[in-house]
């Protein structure tokens, strides 16, 4: 193999190893976190970054042809699809969970959140959950 072949092999392997590492991190977060909104944060990483790195490594292996163009199309499609599916999933969780306040703070309007974060910057106190729920659905 020539020098260009070796460079291609090493670069593709680096991207593939990065993608596998991102997938492993995603799986670790899926078992480590205790609530579904936290798990969703870990799981949304693999949809864009993990599969992006893996498929980019495969593009480098494949060279310049129609197969690599289709792989690029998959990456671009998932860039658009992953935030939408995460949003719909969080809507499902927020609108079907009845005791959401035990897991995270719920604000009915954004003014209260802004005022509270302003005071939290000065007095260095944590955020408190509000009384009502369901405004942000």
């Amino acid at each position, binding site marked *: 193999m020539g020098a260009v072949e070796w460079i291609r*092999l090493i670069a593709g*392997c680096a991207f*593939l190893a990065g*993608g*596998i590492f991102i*997938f*492993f991190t*995603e*799986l670790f977060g*899926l*078992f480590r976190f205790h609530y*579904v909104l936290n*798990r*969703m944060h870990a*799981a949304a990483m*693999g*949809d864009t970054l*993990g*599969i992006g790195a*893996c*498929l980019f490594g*495969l593009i480098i*292996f*494949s060279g310049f042809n*129609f*197969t690599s163009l*289709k*792989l690029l*199309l*998959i990456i671009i*499609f*998932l860039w658009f*699809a992953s935030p*939408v*599916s995460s949003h*719909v*999933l969080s*809507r*499902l*969780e927020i*609108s*079907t*969970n009845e005791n959401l306040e035990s897991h995270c703070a719920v604000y009915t309007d954004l003014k209260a959140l802004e005022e509270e974060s302003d005071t939290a910057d000065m007095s260095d106190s944590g955020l408190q959950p509000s009384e009502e729920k369901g405004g942000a659905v």
Partner: protein
Amino acid sequence: MIYHYIYVTILIILSVMLFACLIRAVRGPRVADRIVAVNMMGTMVMVIIAVLALMLNEGYLVDVCLIYAMISFLAVVILSKVYIGVYEERLHKTQDPDDNEDQDKGGLSDGSC
């Protein structure tokens, strides 16, 4: 030959991760946990199909991968919408059983944007 070993290694690692993800989908306490785990399994299967397309040198498997991505996205959206609709229908039935006749038809349409 060295490419073949790389592909086989990646396939083995991803298969082990796929089974670990299946455990999360079975154990998940809420519905959203299961849908997140199934979505992640879909992502890993997409990488497996793309690796197989290069390993077997069959270009059409990448088309299968693209269709798989679209169907996986559609499944997540539709499952979420259906569960929101079922939940709200059940909520209306338990809260006010008097005007139950109105809610019988439009149960699923409540969950739309």
